[in-house]
């Protein structure tokens, strides 16, 4: 890989033609639009966005599984559309919740089989499988049939499959989806160790877990409705909100207090209400801290009791809300109802 860039895309777009009944005219769905990104070698790059944002479409294009309808993309120095045979030996991909492999084969046999498709010498593949399984805490399950594995263990096996072939660029599409907290922690630790071991390795991670992106990624692109809205280091993205004071307030009861009433207060820039078992949790973004007094005054007028109040640092979730105007959960539910 001669270029310092592991991944480069320019005005990348993908339109799906949706199939309806024969009489209907074919509808089009814009999954990606004008995506221009660069990922340096050795970088852990995150793609952050709600379900249906276009993350998986982008990964499919970069892994040569889907051709773009506009623009171009290069991975490991080769054009994904024109030279897939140059890209394929240098990449691998793991998707969250995938059920690849064969249930009748053991973990070791499944991993060995996939390593052979990349031409890895059998003996070395078996040594590496053992070592990698030990790293993810699965060595004792090496001879277990994969059909007998739990979801978490199966996902760990898939993750080992991706790392086993020594890819220059690895794509992880929601790798921790459906995993319990312990397994998530193991996977994240393993990812960081793998990257640290060789500065030439590049990893592109898609996730809709903000914490995961914040904790792992060198840079993050926030993607929604097929467009990249922002791309920078998590700390830089969060800095754009640093000027606002962010508060989380637990109240009980709500007594008809609405989001609009909060936003209507001078110096309240954003407000979100999520109901809880005991009342509601409010997330407020204020121009300055002194504005809090006016909000509390509103609570008193509405007879809303404050149970807990805390000031917090901005997160990537706040960045997403700032860019899109809605939380990621709201965006997902809105997207699914559309």
């Amino acid at each position, binding site marked *: 890989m001669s270029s310092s860039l592991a991944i480069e895309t320019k005005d990348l777009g993908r339109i799906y033609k949706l199939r309806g009944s024969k009489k209907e005219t074919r509808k089009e769905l814009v999954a990606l639009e004008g995506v221009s990104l660069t990922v340096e070698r050795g970088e852990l790059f995150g793609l952050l966005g709600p379900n249906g944002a276009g993350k998986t479409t982008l990964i499919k294009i970069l892994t040569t599984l889907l051709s773009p309808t506009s623009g171009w993309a290069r991975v490991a120095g080769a054009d994904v559309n024109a030279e897939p045979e140059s890209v394929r030996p240098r990449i691998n991909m793991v998707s969250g919740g995938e059920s690849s492999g064969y249930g009748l084969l053991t973990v070791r046999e499944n991993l060995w089989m*996939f390593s052979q498709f*990349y*031409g890895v010498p059998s003996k070395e593949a078996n040594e590496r499988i053992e070592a990698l399984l030990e790293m993810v805490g699965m060595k004792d399950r090496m001879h277990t049939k994969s059909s007998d594995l739990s979801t978490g263990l199966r996902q760990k096996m898939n993750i080992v499959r991706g790392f086993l072939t020594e890819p220059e660029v690895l794509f992880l599409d929601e790798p921790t989806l459906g995993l319990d907290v312990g397994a998530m922690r193991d996977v994240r630790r393993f990812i960081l160790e793998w990257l640290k071991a060789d500065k030439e390795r590049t990893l592109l991670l898609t996730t809709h877990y903000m914490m995961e992106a914040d904790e792992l990624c060198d840079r993050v692109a926030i993607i929604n409705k097929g467009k990249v809205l922002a791309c920078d280091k998590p700390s830089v993205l969060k800095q754009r909100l640093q000027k606002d004071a962010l508060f989380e307030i637990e109240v009980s009861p709500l007594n008809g207090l609405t989001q609009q009433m909060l936003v209507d207060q001078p110096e309240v820039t954003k407000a979100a209400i999520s109901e809880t078992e005991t009342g509601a949790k409010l997330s407020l973004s204020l121009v300055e801290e002194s504005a809090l007094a006016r909000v509390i005054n509103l609570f008193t007028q509405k007879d809303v009791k404050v149970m807990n109040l805390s000031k917090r640092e901005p997160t990537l979730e706040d960045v997403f809300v700032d860019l899109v105007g809605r939380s990621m959960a709201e965006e997902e539910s809105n997207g699914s109802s559309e």
Partner: protein
Amino acid sequence: MEAVSKKYSHKATGWRLFLKTIIARAYPRIIGQQREISWMVFEVVMPMLAVISYVFVYRALNAPEEYIGFVVMGGAMTAFWMNILWSMSSQLYWEKEQGNLALYIMAPNSMMAILLGMALGGMLATAMRAIAVTLLGMLMFGVTFTVSSYLQLFLVFMLAMVALYGMGMMMASAFLMFGREAWHMANLAQEPIFLASGFYFPIKSLPFWVAAGASVIPLTLGMDAMRQLIFPTGFQFGFMTVQLEIYILAALSVVFLVTAKFLLARVEKLAVREGRITESRR
């Protein structure tokens, strides 16, 4: 940590990668056979029931004794046809559902090697079932075989297998492209093919054009030639000469393998262009 920092000494490319892929993809089929003995019982017992019923019918009709041997051989070869129709043909479809197809396409190996691996694994696993049916038939009905030419027998069997599994590879791509429609077609064709291909009787008994049409299925001519080669009076029941059948089987092998390669390339192209072929419906 050393495990993730050490580089592999080399990675196979070209024909070495092709061979590695074939062996690796054949492995699950061969191992699966050993781990699921119940399949073996099911796939030996069912064809044997058909063999037994035909044997009793032929004996009741005082048919020539050679027919008993024909039926046993047909029963053994049924295993290969069932393997093609219900396993090999739908394999790529199931690989898609499983999530394996995208990984196969994304890997640097050739998809043709994947299909050949499936075929080789299926063939070896099914050969065990075919041998079991043959041995049971020999034991139960005292069938004996007298091979007139081992070389020709080997050639006929191998060509029939290559052509048959080439056909299976071709059908695998077709099933993936046409999905449910192809499934229905295969279902529809199952019984007529059993009849026309002469699994349980020599196809010479059929009208010429029916037998000629059925010869597109490689097992039809394969079985006809093998019957002529392993039963002393088999040539009397032969549809064509063994030599001619060898030529036709060789031609069918080429046609099916080339078509399979063409269809596979088309499937891969469609998959990348439309993005739906590798998509699991689950």
